[in-house]
């Protein structure tokens, strides 16, 4: 599954996208985040306030309970601030 990071989150993680494999089963967004957090301190710090981040799957806003599969594009970012 492709994961995109934007704005401050991209800056903290140090990349704008990466691809992970979540296998045949679908997973909740929150599970994906928890696995990323286990990687290292950087991820752990970047995701320490999951409620202040926003999540989108294939360009639609979703919450942490939404299920994703390897064919989805998950985007994670702070609340938008355009306009």
């Amino acid at each position, binding site marked *: 599954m492709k994961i995109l990071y934007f704005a*401050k989150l991209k800056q903290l993680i140090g990349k704008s996208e990466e691809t992970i494999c979540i296998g045949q089963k679908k997973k909740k967004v929150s599970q994906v985040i928890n696995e990323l957090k286990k990687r290292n301190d950087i991820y752990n710090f970047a995701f320490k306030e999951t409620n202040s981040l926003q999540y*989108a799957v294939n360009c639609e*806003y979703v919450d942490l309970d939404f299920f994703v599969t390897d064919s989805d594009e998950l985007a994670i970012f702070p609340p*938008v*601030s*355009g*306009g």
Partner: protein
Amino acid sequence: MQILFQRKKFIESDFIKKFSSDNKNSGAIFSFIGKVRPKNQNNNVLSIDIELYEKMAQVQIKKIINKLMKKHLIDDYLVVHRYGRVKPRENIVLIVVASQHRKESFRFGEGLMDWLKVKATFWKKENFANGSEWVNQKEADREFIDFSL
């Protein structure tokens, strides 16, 4: 019916002039221009960087527009939003709306701006002499919105 995301500077009046003449039978033309303010709480803003998740911004703005078009009868709209580096006093966003009567274009234009602020995937970073800071979404901007819609 146009949505433009562009790096390039733009002159609002060129767009408004063309839009008004394209919609010559509309009785009402609303427009809103958002510009970079040169100061934020007494700190001089040297520039801002606007990051964009373009594919999602397109999807979200179209969703907002579809929703608003069901509520308000308008003739046409134009949205222009810059991304990349923008200097103080330059335009960031332009919304222009044409309708037969004024209230429709007011409600559509203001609604589009309100939703854009909380749904369109743009992020601003302000650059100061002594560092940069990501701009937080304003609490107030979330309060204008009826998220149940």
